[in-house]
C-alpha cells in the first residue's frame, strides 16, 4: 500500500488510545494528568542547559548573596552558597529521573523473566526463589537500599541498583501470581495439548496478559524510586554534591530551614512531590483501567 495508509495506521493507533482513555472517565484523566506532569518535568530537565537563567553548578556560586529570599532577580531565592534556586530546580531533576528509569529497567530485565520462569517451571527452584524474594520483600526497603548503596558507593548507577534490588521482589510476586492463575486457563491447556513449546506459551500467551500488572507495578516503582533516592541522599549516599540534584537540595535545605530559609527546601520539595505524584497518578489510573474493580 502507499505511504499515506501507513501514516494513518500509526496516527489511528495513538489517538484512539488517548481517545479511549478519555472514554474511561476519571481514571483516564488521571493517567493523562500524570503523564503530562512527568513529561513536562522530563522536558524541563532536558532543556535545562538552555532555559536556566544561571549556572546551577559550582560555577554558579555567588551569583547572588547567600540565602536571599525569593525576589524578582531570583524567583526561587538563593541557597547558602549563593546559587540560584530556580536554575537548580530546573536542572536538578536529572539525577532522580535517571535513577528511577534505570532502576525500573533493571527490575524489568531481572524481575519479570525471573517471575515468568520460576512460576512456570515450579518445583524446588521456584520454592527457593520465592523464599529469597519474600525475605527481601519483608525487609524495610530504605534500610536495605542504604546497606547496598553503602557497599557499592555513591553514584547514579549504584543508587539505581540498590533500589532495583529492593523492588525486584514486587515485580516477581505480581508476575508470579498472574502466571499461576493464567497457567491453568483452558486456552493455555489447549495450546499445550497442541504441542506448543513452553517458550511459545510463555511469551505468546502468558506474557501479554501479565503486562498490564507489570505496568502498574512499574509506575509505583518509579514513584518509590524517587522517594528512596531522596532518602539515600539524606543519609549521604546520593551523587556528589556539585551535581545539581533535588535530593541534595532537600537535605541541605532541611539544615537551613530552622534559620528561616524556607525556599531552599520548599521548591525542590514541591517538584519531587510533583514527580512522584505524576507517576502515582498514572499508576492509579492505569490500575483502574487495566484491573477494573467496580463494574461500571
Amino acid at each position, binding site marked *: 500500500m502507499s505511504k499515506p495508509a501507513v501514516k494513518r495506521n500509526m496516527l489511528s493507533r495513538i489517538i484512539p488510545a488517548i481517545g479511549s482513555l478519555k472514554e474511561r472517565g476519571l481514571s483516564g484523566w488521571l493517567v493523562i494528568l500524570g503523564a503530562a506532569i512527568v513529561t513536562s518535568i522530563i522536558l524541563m530537565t532536558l532543556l535545562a542547559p538552555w532555559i536556566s537563567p544561571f549556572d546551577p553548578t559550582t560555577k554558579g556560586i555567588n551569583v547572588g548573596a547567600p540565602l536571599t529570599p525569593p525576589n524578582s532577580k531570583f524567583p526561587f531565592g538563593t541557597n*547558602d552558597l549563593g546559587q540560584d534556586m530556580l536554575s537548580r530546580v530546573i536542572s536538578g531533576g536529572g539525577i532522580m529521573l535517571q535513577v528511577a528509569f534505570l532502576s525500573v529497567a533493571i527490575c524489568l530485565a531481572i524481575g519479570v523473566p525471573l517471575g515468568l520462569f520460576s512460576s512456570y517451571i515450579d518445583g524446588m527452584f521456584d520454592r527457593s526463589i520465592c523464599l529469597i524474594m519474600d525475605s527481601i520483600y519483608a525487609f524495610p526497603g530504605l534500610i536495605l537500599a542504604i546497606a547496598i548503596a553503602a557497599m557499592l558507593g555513591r553514584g547514579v548507577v549504584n543508587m539505581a541498583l540498590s533500589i532495583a534490588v529492593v523492588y525486584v521482589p514486587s515485580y516477581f510476586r505480581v508476575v508470579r501470581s498472574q502466571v499461576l492463575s493464567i497457567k491453568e486457563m483452558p486456552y493455555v491447556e489447549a495450546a499445550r495439548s497442541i504441542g506448543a513449546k513452553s517458550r511459545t506459551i510463555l511469551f505468546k500467551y502468558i506474557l501479554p496478559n501479565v503486562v498490564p500488572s507489570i505496568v502498574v507495578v512499574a509506575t509505583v516503582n518509579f514513584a518509590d524510586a524517587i522517594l528512596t533516592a531522596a532518602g539515600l541522599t539524606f543519609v549521604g549516599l546520593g551523587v556528589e554534591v556539585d551535581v545539581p540534584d533535588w535530593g541534595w537540595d532537600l537535605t541541605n535545605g532541611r539544615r537551613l530551614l530552622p534559620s*528561616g*530559609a524556607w525556599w531552599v527546601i520548599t521548591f525542590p520539595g514541591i517538584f519531587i512531590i510533583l514527580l512522584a505524584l505524576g507517576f502515582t497518578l498514572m499508576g492509579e489510573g492505569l490500575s483502574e483501567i487495566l484491573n477494573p474493580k467496580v463494574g461500571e
Partner: protein
Amino acid sequence: MRGTRAISKIAIVGIVIVIIVVAAVVGYFLMQPAKKESVLIMGTTDTVESCLDPARAYDYFGWEIIQALGSGLVEYRPGATGAAEDIVPALATSWSVSQDGLVWTFNLRQGVKFDDGTEFNATHVKYTFDRGIGIADPEGPFVGIGYGDIIENVTVVSKYVVKFYLKIPFSAFLSLLACQASYIVDPKYAPLNQVVEYKAGDARGSHPMGLGPYKLTKWTRTAGRDEEMVLEANPNYWNATGGYPKTQKIIIKFYADSASLALAIDAGEIDIAFRQLSAADINNLKTKTHLKVWQGTGAFIQYLVLQEKRPPFNNPIIRQAVAAAINRTAIVNTVFLGQVQKLYSIIPVGMFGHTDVFLTLGDPNYTLTRQLLAPLGYNETNKLTFKLWYETSGHYPQSPQLAQMLKASLEASGVISVELEGVEWTQYRQERIRETMDAYILGWYPDYIDPDDYIYPFLHSSGGSWLHHNYANPKMDQLIEWARGNTTASVREQLYEQIQELMAEDCPIIPIYQGSAWAVTKSNVKGVYLDITQSWRHWLVYKE
C-alpha cells in the same frame, strides 16, 4: 439487635480514648514534679568517639567530658590567651623547673580526696603517666603527642612532691600538663594495662577520673550512640570551697544534626546549645531576644593536605600553584557568613609564632597560579586535574559547602579542574591511612596551647606521620626540634618564623580558615567562657 452492638463497640472505644486523654491531661498538670532549680540542660550534636579514658580518648567531646570529671596538675584560667601567666595551679600548688629544662618539680595540693576517701598524692601522678605511656594506645594522645618521647620518667619524691624527668627540654611541658590527656586517674577505676570503656548501667565504672568538679551519674548509649549524660556536683572537688561547680546538675542531650539542635534551643527545650550549629543558624539565633549567642576565641583550624607520594603533588611548584588559587575571602563570607577568619599561617591568629606567610602566595593570585603551571604544560586546554576529598559525616562544620567553594575557587583560575569526592568519616580515615587521596581537607583543635602543637604534628617527618602525606624535610625537622627544645621566647619566635617560611616554600599543607567556638544559650545563662583552650568549662556555667 446486632446492629446496636456494632455502635456500642465504637462508643466503648470512644469512651476509652476520652478516659486516656483526661488521665493524661490531669496527670500532666497535677502531678508535675517540682522543677529543681539548679539544673542545666545542654544540647550537642557531638558524641563520645571512643571512651572517656585519657589514655585513649582523643576526640573533642571526650575531652570536654573528661574535663568535667577530672583535674590535672595545672589548668588554664578562664579567658586564657595562651600566655604563660594563664597557667594556674590545680592539683599542683607550685612548681619549678631545673636550669636545663629537663627536671620539673611539682608540689601537690593536700587534702584532696577521691570518692572513696583515699587522699590524692604523688603516687597517683606517677600511676597516671606510667599507665598512659605504657598502654601506648595507637589511637590515643599519648602516642599522638608523643608523651613517651618527651617524658623519661616520673618519680615520687615524697607524698606531695613529684618530679618529671624529661628527655628533651620541652618548652610547652607545662601546657601539656594542662591538657586532658594529662588528667589524673583513680587507680581504683583505671586498671594499669587496660583502657576503661563504656559500661551500660554503670556510669561510675565507665570512666577512670575522679578529682573533677562533677561526677558522672548517668551515661546512656542506646545502640552505640550517646543518648544522655548526667553530671552531678562532686562534693570532694578541690575547688568546692570556691563555690564550684556553680550548677549542681547538668544534663546533656544528644541531637542527630544541627537542624534538630537549632530547633531545640529555639523552642526552649535546652538551656545551652554547643557544637555544632551552622552559620545560618547562628545568624538567625542572634536575632532572637530570648537567646544569647556567645562567640569565643578560635583555635580550630581547617587546612588542605596534599599527597606527595605521587604526581601531581610530588612537585612543590604545583603545590604552590594550588595554594595561590585559594580564595579565602569567598570561603569565609559565603560558607561561614563571616563568622570565621582567613588563615595564612598554620599557627592560629592570636597565638605567638603566627605569621601570615601564605599571604605571599596570594589570596587568590590566579596570575601566579597560571605562571607556575604554564612551564609544566598546564593551561586552559590541558588543565591540572585532581580529586579533592572531604568528609560527609558532619565531623567538621559544613564540609560539603567548603569543598564546593574550594572547587569553585580553584577552577576559577582557568587551569585547574577539580573532582569532588565525599565519603563518611570512618572511610575517610581509612583512605587517609591507605594514602589513596590526592588532596583532602582536615581540621585541628589544639591539644595544648603552644605553637609546637600546630607545627610538630604537621611538619615533622615523624610527628606528622598520622597525616600520611609523606612530607619529610630534614631541615624542617631540625628547626622543629630546636624550637620545641628551646625555652627562650625570642629564639623560639625566630625559629617558628623560619619554619613557616620554609613551609610556604614546600606547601605540604595549606591553611584555609580559623574558626571560633560558638554557643547559644537562653538569655539567663551566665558564666560561659570560650577561650583559646577551646574547652567548655561546665563548672563555671549557671542560670540566673
